[in-house]
């Protein structure tokens, strides 16, 4: 077995062991911490599968933001005990059912088709007119731009869903808990040092996404993370959800994307098709607006429902 295969086998064994730990751990806090480590290992698995854009997204959103959300929830739900474990019969039946599903999926994996249907040559062949060098960016913003637009709208709907769960008396309030960290604390030091560097990294990741792995979603997530660091260190208050600037920033990304898409009816072949020669500038405009919107939306989704009214 070559070194690469030995590494893959070790990675898979570790992934399965950690996944079992997440399922059977007693305390929610340890399960979530192990889940964050699991997410990072899955990101390494994605690199082994030659999908670096997906690895970046998984590490940032799948492991980082999701883990942060779950840790915050576990902290607020501390003390609620499990309402009794499930009966043995249910566990045995569920185990058999899940084993059947796993075996079915495994059988599908182990019997690959004789002729592999792939869109890679078509994707690469049609990439030069758009000016992009990264085929995944090409799929996201040129071939399946409709899916990306709807994905951004799904994020917006999630934000609306989160806000709609606000109690009436707190409508228009400020999300996130009250922060008491002093201006001399360690978190304040981190929040003063890290965000400038983080913003440079985010801009770089978005800009380089045109030709190398990266893109608007990954850069937007780093922007959201920097904003959250500043808020939890107490250096800046979370905005109240009725501020016009917040709502504008959340909407500007999908609005510009939709506008460019509708302009495609007049200027090019149809919805979301770009006029010849103008594809790269338009895609850059869309990506910049989308990064800003994604950063603000993900930050607000991670902060949650309003917890207190803004002090007048």
């Amino acid at each position, binding site marked *: 077995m070559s070194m690469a*295969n030995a590494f893959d086998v070790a990675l898979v064994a570790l992934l399965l062991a950690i996944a079992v730990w997440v399922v059977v751990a007693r305390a929610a806090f340890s399960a979530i911490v192990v889940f964050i480590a699991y997410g990072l290992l899955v990101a390494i698995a994605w690199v082994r599968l030659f999908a670096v854009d997906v690895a970046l997204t998984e590490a940032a959103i799948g492991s980082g933001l999701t883990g942060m959300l779950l840790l915050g929830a576990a902290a607020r739900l501390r003390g609620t005990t499990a309402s009794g474990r499930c009966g043995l019969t249910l566990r045995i039946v569920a185990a058999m059912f899940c084993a059947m599903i796993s075996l079915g999926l495994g059988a599908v994996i182990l019997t690959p088709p004789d002729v592999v249907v792939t869109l890679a040559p078509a994707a690469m062949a049609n990439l030069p007119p758009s000016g992009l060098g990264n085929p995944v960016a090409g799929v996201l913003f040129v071939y399946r731009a409709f899916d990306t637009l709807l994905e951004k709208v799904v994020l917006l709907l999630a934000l609306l869903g989160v806000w709609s769960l606000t109690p009436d008396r707190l409508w228009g309030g400020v999300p996130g808990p009250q922060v008491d960290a002093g201006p001399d604390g360690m978190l304040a030091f981190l929040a003063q040092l890290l965000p400038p560097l983080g913003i440079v990294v985010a801009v770089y990741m978005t800009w380089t996404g045109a030709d190398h792995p990266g893109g608007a979603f990954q850069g937007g997530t780093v922007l959201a993370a920097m904003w959250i660091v500043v808020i939890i260190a107490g250096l800046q208050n979370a905005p109240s959800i009725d501020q016009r600037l917040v709502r504008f920033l959340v909407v500007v990304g999908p609005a510009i994307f939709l506008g460019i898409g509708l302009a495609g009816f007049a200027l090019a072949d149809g919805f979301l098709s770009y006029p010849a020669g103008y594809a790269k500038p338009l895609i850059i405009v869309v990506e910049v607006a989308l990064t800003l919107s994604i950063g603000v939306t993900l930050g607000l989704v991670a902060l949650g429902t309003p917890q207190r009214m803004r002090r007048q």
Partner: protein
Amino acid sequence: MNAATLFGICGAALAGLGLFGLITNSEPLRKILAFNLLGTGTFLIFGVVARRGAAAGLGGDPVPQALVITGIVVAFSATAMAVVLLLRLFEESGKATLDPNEADGASTAEDDS
């Protein structure tokens, strides 16, 4: 067995584990964790399909990879909604459980509609 098939089997096992956790864990937060496990396992299976479609000088077929990126963002949105619903349930009823027999301790908080 090459790397792609190995990760595919890993993804299948993770999907089964996640589903088992979703069915048998009684705490809603653990169910959300298991749902994420199920999600990452399914995405790994997509990744194997992408890897097997490697052609034209690329390491993998970019279309399934872009679908997985979309899927990760949508899974995060679903997780965020689920967590906020759970926290709201906890604020209203004082318990974080989906079992109606357990949750009949009435809320003493003010009327929040």
